[in-house]
């Protein structure tokens, strides 16, 4: 099976708004940066993948609007209404099958263009049993967090500490939109949004675009820059319905991780991986996901480690040194790719003031947000 690597990264910084660019112009900027980074011409790319959801774009068939600004006109290109990490999975399959050598993955957010975002999120809920309750859909996160706290023994204060850590981490990341010197107390003192979830524990939407160039091993060895190798990629869904799902465990994350670990030959994630970019759409999710990822045996241990600074930059298990979704922002389908972007910088040794020393292997994990139980895991390495 052919190995694959990321050989180019382009992005626009995550920002609450981006009024100077249309989505096409934003994608064009990120694509140009990615191709320059990879040292390739757009014409060399054989296949393209965009990760996008129609209603986040406000167009009924967004696939129509994808090719030109990436250089994909008259080429194989398709849309996945999935997170950007699923896009990487697709590119890896295209390469491993032997069909393609050079594949581009794109995802973006123009969240600032959506005037009724929560209505759209709510449109993802079951129309017969759930939507008639007429609620803001983030209540689902409140329900889940409460169950998670109950089952895991994690405290509200420990969740708040995650939010404070990630917002502080973002201070070292020029790409992040929501950097802040925040303390756990300030998070805990923010009003409840969806009890027991505080307002400052929700990742805020951002605009931005990330483009990655993936290549087969043979093609990567001819690449201009240092390739970052894809060691494993896994993705999975849990039970979708609110009625049948597991309310305490992130089963989708556990399943996706186990697939990725198997491919990468990783048996002790905490020891073998030096940098983690883990979904923190809501602060408690980071702890829940760290357990599902087997980085800590339990979420409670993850919470204790966080309190002791073990997941900070400089700690033994740095988690979300980029700032995560709480610090960088929630870039809709591009959220996973901002995590990968951070890993690329870390593994290339380009992360500047937030560089994790000795980072050789990194993990990025995504979750598609409420009401889904859908996520993916990608493991990257420097060599």
């Amino acid at each position, binding site marked *: 099976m052919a190995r694959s690597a990321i050989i180019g990264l382009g992005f626009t910084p995550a920002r609450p708004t981006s*009024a*100077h660019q249309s989505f096409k112009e934003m994608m064009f900027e990120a694509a140009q940066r990615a191709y320059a980074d990879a040292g390739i011409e757009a014409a060399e790319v054989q296949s393209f993948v965009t990760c996008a959801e129609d*209603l986040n774009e*406000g167009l*009924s068939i967004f696939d129509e609007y994808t090719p030109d600004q990436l250089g994909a006109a008259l080429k194989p290109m398709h849309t996945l209404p999935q997170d950007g990490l699923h896009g990487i999975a697709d590119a890896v399959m295209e390469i491993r099958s032997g069909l393609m050598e050079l594949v581009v993955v794109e995802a973006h957010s123009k969240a600032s*263009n959506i*005037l*009724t975002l*929560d*209505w759209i999120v*709510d449109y993802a809920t079951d*129309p*017969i*049993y*759930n939507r*008639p*309750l*007429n*609620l*803001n*859909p*983030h*209540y689902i996160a*409140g*329900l*889940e*967090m*409460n*169950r998670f706290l*109950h089952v895991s023994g994690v405290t509200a204060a420990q969740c708040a500490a995650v939010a404070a850590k990630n917002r502080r981490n973002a201070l070292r990341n020029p790409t992040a939109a929501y950097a802040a010197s925040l303390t756990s107390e300030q998070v805990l003192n923010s*009003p*409840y*949004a*969806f*009890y*027991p*979830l505080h307002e400052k524990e929700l990742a805020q939407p951002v605009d931005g675009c990330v483009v990655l160039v993936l290549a087969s091993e043979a093609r990567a060895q001819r690449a201009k820059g240092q390739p970052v190798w894809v060691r494993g990629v896994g993705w999975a869904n849990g*039970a979708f*319905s*609110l*009625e*049948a799902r597991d*309310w305490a465990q992130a089963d989708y994350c556990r399943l996706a991780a186990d697939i990725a670990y198997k491919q990468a030959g990783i048996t002790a994630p905490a020891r073998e991986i030096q940098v983690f970019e883990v979904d923190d759409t809501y602060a408690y999710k980071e702890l829940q996901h760290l357990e599902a990822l087997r980085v800590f045996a339990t979420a409670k241990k993850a919470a204790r480690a966080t309190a002791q600074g073990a997941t900070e930059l400089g700690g033994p298990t740095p988690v979300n040194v980029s700032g995560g979704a709480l610090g960088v922002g929630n870039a809709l389908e591009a959220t996973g790719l901002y995590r990968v972007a951070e890993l690329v910088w870390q593994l290339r040794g380009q992360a500047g003031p937030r560089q994790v020393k000795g980072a050789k292997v990194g993990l990025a994990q995504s979750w598609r947000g409420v009401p889904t139980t859908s996520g993916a895991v990608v493991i990257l390495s420097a060599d």
Partner: protein
Amino acid sequence: MKPTTNDTLRTWRDNIPVTALYTAGLGGTIFLQALKERGQLVGTRCPTCQRTYLPAQQFCERCFAELTEQVRVKSKGEVVSFTQAHYDRDDNRLPAPITVAAVRLDGADTVLIHYLLRTPKPRIGARVRVLLKPKAKRTGSILDIAGFVPA
């Protein structure tokens, strides 16, 4: 030099003008009919996976079996989780929060999501029961249930 200024930036505003009419489906029809006409909570059971789905499902998501065995579930159960929503869908802060609970009714392996009423201090593990609307006001909707109240 002519900078891009805020005066030249524009947005174009529009909407997606759709409305929807959803059918309850085969499973949903069983559930809603029993709820409306008999005030009962009917699920379906997968004999292979030994799980009772409430509301009734046409198929088992785990093994794909067609579910033909209908099971009447009790109207009492236990709070698996609850939350208090302080925002509405337009992101306005609500004057008073809305309490919502996930409740596992006795005899079901799944939870039902609904409002938690008359409960100033909600608690996970508390026993509650389903409060139905009077028969004359039931239309065959999940809102035929008014919510959960302390058992």
